[in-house]
């Protein structure tokens, strides 16, 4: 079989580096070109020290891109939509990791991003690249949108409860999210400076975070709100969702519901133990892998359900889900190139 030729735009970023880590080992693809404006002409390993010896590629400019089979785009939010026609001219299959094509409805985009979408006609062509939610739609898809990492953690924690129609529609679901520093990408800023960020427990978006839109869209439910806090880790997202059932529910019943939803999922692990250090999902246990760990607890006194999901923001929260989605779209085995066991402890 001839290998599918893939180019990556914005390959000097963290998501770009993670795509390279995955695709360089993927048996059905080869990397054609990788772009960076600020490091054009330099070897990839100068920016991605882990990729030394894994690739001899050098970065080129976006302007030097040649046609290819699949184009991955890992540019910052807002940088893709204006260029979408140019990208589409380069490749028949697009995978955009940015937030530009995650929402289906133009009015949602306008509401959460504060300005109208420059190419609203493209919104409905994209499939949201979360296989656990949109696997059927991903088959044969030609435009795949990457996921929001925080959104994915919230969605995967809550989806079984929503799907089973368990939740009280009158009561909002509150999702507290703890996020690691690589979420914000490679560009330094005063808040990412090591002396400032080390040891911080910094609430940075207690209300009205943009990922709320994706979560609501995927869950089909308005009453979900998010609060985000930055903590001292490099990779990882933990979502803690507080939800109220219509009727009291016991834990064994929740086990059944989560098993029904995720029992066949290759990358979801149910974590709920009564012993040991690792009783519930912790992003530390998935670092470097495409796993999302999901768990739950019920508060006997109040009936509150706490649903949890831990994932690696650069993997299940970005590059991993994107490659998984591409595998589905291309008709390859879904786990191809993603058989990575987490690195622990690290």
């Amino acid at each position, binding site marked *: 079989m001839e290998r599918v030729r893939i180019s990556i735009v914005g390959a000097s970023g963290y998501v770009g580096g993670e795509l390279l880590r995955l695709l360089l080992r993927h048996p059905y693809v080869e990397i054609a070109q990788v772009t960076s404006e600020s490091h054009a002409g330099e070897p990839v390993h100068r920016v991605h020290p882990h990729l030394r010896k894994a690739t001899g590629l050098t970065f080129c400019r976006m302007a030097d891109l040649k046609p290819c089979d699949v184009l991955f785009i890992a540019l910052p939010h807002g940088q893709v939509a204006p260029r979408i026609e140019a990208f589409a001219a380069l490749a028949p299959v697009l995978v955009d990791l940015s937030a530009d094509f995650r929402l289906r409805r133009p009015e949602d985009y306008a509401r959460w991003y504060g300005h109208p979408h420059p190419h609203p006609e493209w919104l409905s062509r994209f499939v949201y690249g979360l296989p656990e939610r949109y696997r059927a739609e991903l088959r044969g898809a030609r435009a795949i949108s990457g996921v929001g990492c925080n959104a994915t953690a919230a969605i995967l924690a809550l989806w079984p409860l929503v799907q089973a129609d368990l939740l009280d529609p009158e009561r909002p679901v509150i999702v507290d999210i703890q996020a690691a520093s690589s979420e914000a990408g490679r560009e330094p800023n005063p808040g990412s400076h090591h002396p400032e960020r080390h040891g911080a427990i910094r609430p940075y978006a207690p209300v009205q975070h943009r990922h709320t839109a994706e979560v609501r869209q995927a869950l089909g439910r308005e009453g979900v709100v998010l609060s985000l806090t930055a903590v001292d880790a490099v990779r990882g997202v933990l979502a803690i969702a507080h939800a109220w059932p219509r009727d009291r529910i016991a*834990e*064994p019943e929740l086990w059944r519901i989560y*098993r029904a939803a995720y029992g066949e999922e290759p990358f979801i692990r149910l974590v709920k*133990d*009564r012993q040991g250090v690792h009783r519930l999902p912790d992003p530390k246990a998935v670092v470097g892998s495409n796993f999302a760990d999901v768990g739950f607890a019920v508060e006997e006194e109040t009936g509150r359900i706490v649903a949890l999901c831990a994932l690696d923001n650069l993997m299940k929260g970005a590059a991993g889900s994107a490659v998984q989605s591409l595998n589905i779209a291309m008709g390859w085995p879904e786990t191809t190139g993603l058989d990575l066991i987490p690195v622990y402890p690290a």
Partner: protein
Amino acid sequence: MSQAICPECAAGVPLREDVMLHEFLTCPECGTALEVVSLSPLTLDRAPQVEEDWGE
């Protein structure tokens, strides 16, 4: 192989035919330590555990 239901997670726990009363085993789904507390009907309960408490 017969089955019994895990009281913790409602998974089916496979049991050998010659399983004995008060035998201990581990639920393969949720990892809970279980004890066979009745043979007919085959019934499992959580095994007594030393409480680990490493709270903050």
